[in-house]
């Protein structure tokens, strides 16, 4: 896909991602099952369970899921 190597900016970005990388990350599919619990927890701004913290961690690493969740949140709050 790309024949040239990454730029320094991209490597900086990657280093930031590697700082957050860990073995027990949640995947893009896994959080969907618990989205209702996460919505509730975020609304109540209470402490998150370990499982919900993994969702939060996934959103730090995955901008696309974060964008989707923000849209879900908007829709859910106005429903």
């Amino acid at each position, binding site marked *: *896909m*790309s024949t*040239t190597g990454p730029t320094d900016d991209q490597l900086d970005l990657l*280093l930031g991602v590697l700082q957050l990388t860990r073995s027990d990350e949640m*995947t893009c599919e896994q959080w969907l099952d618990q989205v*209702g619990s996460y919505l509730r927890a975020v609304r109540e701004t209470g402490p998150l369970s370990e499982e919900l913290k993994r969702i939060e961690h996934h959103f730090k690493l995955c901008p696309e899921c974060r964008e989707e969740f923000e*849209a879900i949140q908007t*829709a859910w709050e106005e429903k």
Partner: protein
Amino acid sequence: MSERTDKQWRAELTARDAVAISDLRRFLVRGIARGLGDRAGRDLAEDFAQEAMLKILDNLDSLRADGGLLAWCLAIGMRTAFSELRRSRWKDVSLDALAAPVREQITPTAGPERAGVDETKQRLMSTLRSLIDEELTPRQREAILAELQGIPQVVLAERLGVNRNALYKLSHDGRMKLKSGLQRAGFKENEVRSLLDDAS
């Protein structure tokens, strides 16, 4: 429609009850339209909701959704919508032409006090480049580099012939290799962090 419990929703949708299906579709159209805001009009929201309905009905059996069925339905709707939007935004972009532009590298003017930091950072960057070349499989490399270029997962997954979950795992395995490679090369996590902080 909000009076239904999850159990009722599940039973009625499983039985393909026409009223439940119509209620859910209406909920999805409204939710998707609100969530997308000015990213898409009502017509598109209806198309996305229709497509999401099929996925929802297909996946009801395997669904856990312990946090609420409607929230899960909305999440499926939003994922469907964003995937379509991202796909269409990238449909005319040839991924082969996406070779990262070699940007002019801006090196901060180095005073004597920066020299040590810059040298370590340069060593870190060159180690990372070598790890990308030598430790990653071709598919892991392609996935990670494409993500750094901002190519959406839905586009990349199709290109690699995998689903989004498998793509995430591919990239995650690659990241784990790079992370442990840096540690093996002697870069401690807090050292990398302070170099990053220093750069920002």
